[in-house]
């Protein structure tokens, strides 16, 4: 085929330009270390990288969430541990104060320490985190949750729990509302609570009692009345007779699946209450002991009322302890779950980073050898151009 001189020239130049642009592309890849520098380099790959990066960023956020959650749960856990310690100390003092050998002055001294422990417990329940948020206020974290009010204690938080997202499909509760931890604790033995009538004249003492058959229990407020020092009857809140019997100190008085005992010498007309459990705050239980220990015990009747009340409060205290330790266990469980999610997200982060690298990162060995090949090709194009340009018939004329 006939070729024009201009064609020879422009072909040579074009060849060099093509090689140069290929070389520039490889050079850009080598300089950035990326295989894909523009979406058009590999549209599907570019899209996949974006998706993976989105996944990575989200995983990192979940990881941050988990870490924050774990640190908050750890704070809650340590507060709960302190609360349990406080309660155990309180119980020791109460047991000490319940000793028959204690006199009024001794109990008064103990009651001062109990009052201190109550203040400490209240402070623990009003703990704030590093951000100044109350940790036991539900989600009403800007409001001090527990306060003394006339006649008891009020909870000003709510029953809400903040959920923290720890993975795409899982949220874990951040804290526990103070109502569930300190307030809504069933008093007595958890099913019913016993008490002695304020006007009891005898020295009878009622124990907290036990449940023998929960299915037979009919929740109601029952009254155990001594119709004589040796006979008793139990009536429900509608004054219907439930059961009656002869009094033997310490013997079981059983009805509706529960059992209580009375000891001492009750007088005729003495009454004891057996009420279905209601919620009683830990603080009310504490306050109950403080008040009880400050009540003078002079007569045998005082003694009977003291120990009836003492027994009921002690079982309420045990319910509160039970509640605290259960809450602590739940917090620990949630912290463990959050830590597990943390590991999962960490693994995911590593996996996603590897996957992104596979799509995005340049294979240096391949790119370097490609670069060398392209350099050689460019040199060849340049040399052949120079040689061909030297060929001319005019050189020989």
């Amino acid at each position, binding site marked *: 085929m006939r070729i024009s001189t201009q064609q020879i020239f422009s072909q040579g130049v074009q060849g060099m330009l093509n090689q140069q642009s290929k070389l520039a592309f490889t050079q850009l890849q080598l300089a950035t270390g990326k295989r894909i520098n523009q979406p058009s380099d590999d549209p599907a790959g570019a*899209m996949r990288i974006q998706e993976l990066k989105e996944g990575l960023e989200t995983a990192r956020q979940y990881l941050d969430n988990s870490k924050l959650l774990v640190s908050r749960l750890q704070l809650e856990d340590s507060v709960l541990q302190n609360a349990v310690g406080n309660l155990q100390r309180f119980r020791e003092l109460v047991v000490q104060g319940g000793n028959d050998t204690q006199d009024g002055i001794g109990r008064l001294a103990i009651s001062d320490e109990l009052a201190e422990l109550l203040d400490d417990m209240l402070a623990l329940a009003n703990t704030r985190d590093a951000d100044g948020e109350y940790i036991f206020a539900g989600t009403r974290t800007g409001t001090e949750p527990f306060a003394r009010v006339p006649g008891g204690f009020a909870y000003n938080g709510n029953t809400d729990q903040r959920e923290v997202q720890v993975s795409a499909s899982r949220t874990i509760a951040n804290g526990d509302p103070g109502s569930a931890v300190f307030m809504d604790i069933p008093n007595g033995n958890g099913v019913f609570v016993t008490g002695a009538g304020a006007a009891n004249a005898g020295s009878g003492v009622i124990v907290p009692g036990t449940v023998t058959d929960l299915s037979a229990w009919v929740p109601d407020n029952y009254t155990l009345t001594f119709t004589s020092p040796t006979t008793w009857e139990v009536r429900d809140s509608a004054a219907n007779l439930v059961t009656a019997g002869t009094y033997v100190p310490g013997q079981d008085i059983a009805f509706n699946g529960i059992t209580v005992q009375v000891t001492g010498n009750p007088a005729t007309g003495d009454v004891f209450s057996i009420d279905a459990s209601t919620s009683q705050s830990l603080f009310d239980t504490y306050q109950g002991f403080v008040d009880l220990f400050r009540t003078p015990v002079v007569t045998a009747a005082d003694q009977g009322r003291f120990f009836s009340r003492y027994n009921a409060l002690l079982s309420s205290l045990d319910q509160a302890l039970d509640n605290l330790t259960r809450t602590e266990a739940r917090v620990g469980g949630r912290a463990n779950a959050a830590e597990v999610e943390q590991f999962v997200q960490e693994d995911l982060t590593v996996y996603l980073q590897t996957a992104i690298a596979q799509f995005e990162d340049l294979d240096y060995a391949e790119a370097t050898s490609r670069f060398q090949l392209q350099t050689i090709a460019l040199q060849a194009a340049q040399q052949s151009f120079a040689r061909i340009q030297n060929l001319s018939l005019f050189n020989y004329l």
Partner: protein
Amino acid sequence: MGVDLFGIGKSALLGFQQALSTVGHNIANVNTEGYSRQQVMFGTTRPFYTTRGWLGTGVQPTEVRRIYSAFVNAQVTHNTSLNEFQQSLKQLTGSLDYMAGQEATSLNTPLQAFFNAVQEVATSPADIAAREVMLGESRSLVQRFRLLNDEFDRLQNQANSQIQATVADINGMAENLARLNEQIIRDIGTGQIPNDLLDQRDYLINQLAEQVAVQTVEQDNGALNVFIGSGQALVVDTRANRLLAAPLGADPNRLDIAIDAPSGPIRITEQITGGRLAAQLEFRDRDLSRARNEIGRVAIGLAIRFNEQHAQGLDLNGNIGSDYFAVPQPLVLDDPNNSTYGISSIGVQYEDISQLTTDNYRMSFDGVNWTLVNLTTGQSVPLTPSGGDFLADGMRITPDPGAVAGDSYEIRPTANGALQIDLLIDNPRLIAAASTHATRALDTNTGTGGISDVTVTNAADPAFTTDLTIVFDNPPTSFSINGNPSQPYTPGAVISLNGIEFVIDGTPAAGDTFTVTYNSDAVGNGDNALRLAGIQQEQILAGGNETVFSAYDEYLARIGTRTRQVNTNAESQQVLLDQAIAQREGISGVNLDEEAANLQRYQQSYQAAAQVISTADTLFNTLLQAVGG
């Protein structure tokens, strides 16, 4: 007169002289663009009759021929248009591709940072610092949308000014072609072909073909008539028509191409094919418009869905969340010829973001019926009447009450997205991170019943903040709310009262209790922020198939694929053009080696002819000496 050796020699000398100067002309024009090599054609002169036969009388140059093929030249012109179209498109789409690849213009980064900040607020809703970060990231996100919009504007302005420059070039070339036609008509009148002028004209046609595809028709008088588009005359004989680049349609920012006719401009924008001009138009009206609409749809989807969820929550002041983002408005462009132009128009609102497309539409009125055409697909879109309005493709369109037959409106539903999205909240306390109500199944419940979160339907309801206690009766086939008369229980049915809605599901036992508590002062509640953060995973766009993230990823992939496809086309088109040029060069191009050989050949022939004259001279002298002797 008899045969004259002098005469023969002289004719050869003159002929070879002419051939040599033509070789010289070829060598001189070896670098002239569009030059076709020339060759002197020789023929014998009229022979002399003798009774012994015809005697030759010498040589004469018959013509100076331009070596070319009209077919191959037309191939080059045709491929030049196609190639220039692809090369220009490659350059233009490359700018979008480059933009998509840059971290500084990526939407993904600020979107991710924004949603992460929302997560932080969900985790620490009472933390003002976390809220400030969320507002900061929101601002960055809005700014990124604006930046993208600015880039789209810049590219559109650039395309418009390129279109103007191209049209000016075309007009200049048309003028030159008309003048060349004039000269060629005059020169052909002399009976000889003006080779060099024809080369110049062919070359000019090629340059014009770079700007826009042309069709040419050669006239008997030697003039070349040039047409563009679907047969609009650009050059006829010695007269050139002018092209205009001016906004003739509804959009003042969109230059149309028109022929400047005495009766007024004739719009030919849609008829333009090939060359730089068609590439600029296609890029502006297709690639850029689509890119703008796609980014716009992300902005609109995010703004509407985020606002919707934000209004389901309570801010730190205990108020229902106000609009978080300013929602962009659909762009409606009235045709300047409308009877109601500047007076009234159609109204367009977003009805369903999942149905929104990234296309543009034209709404027209024929005096009786309204019709909607998707300008991207060319398909007509069914209009569903809805209370005096029409619903179509996620839009609610209110007809123009004053419209008369022939009125039309262009709708670009998502074009304003990136421009108009804005942050409406600048006080961190106003982020509605808390849910309005907390729902709870009491721990003492023995059944399997569960209660859903609350959806706000009317926050202005006077009983909106009333707490609810829902107790199941015995048997648990009905329940009562706040001690009111019992109502039958249907698992999963929506319970709606006091401006809120919720669902109880499962099998509650008798006495089971659920509470719905108004979240007053619940500064630590981040439920609504958690749901706001969940929008990241919600497939709210493209018929419920795309999240705001995947919609953007799709955008990147589409830009990448399109650029790649254009690049591939450009490469193959370049090969076709190179082949056509090689063919033309093979026929018409000057080869210096060939010219050197011809130089030698004609030089030797010239020397031989001179020898003929010398021989004739010797013969003549011999005769003189013999006679004079």
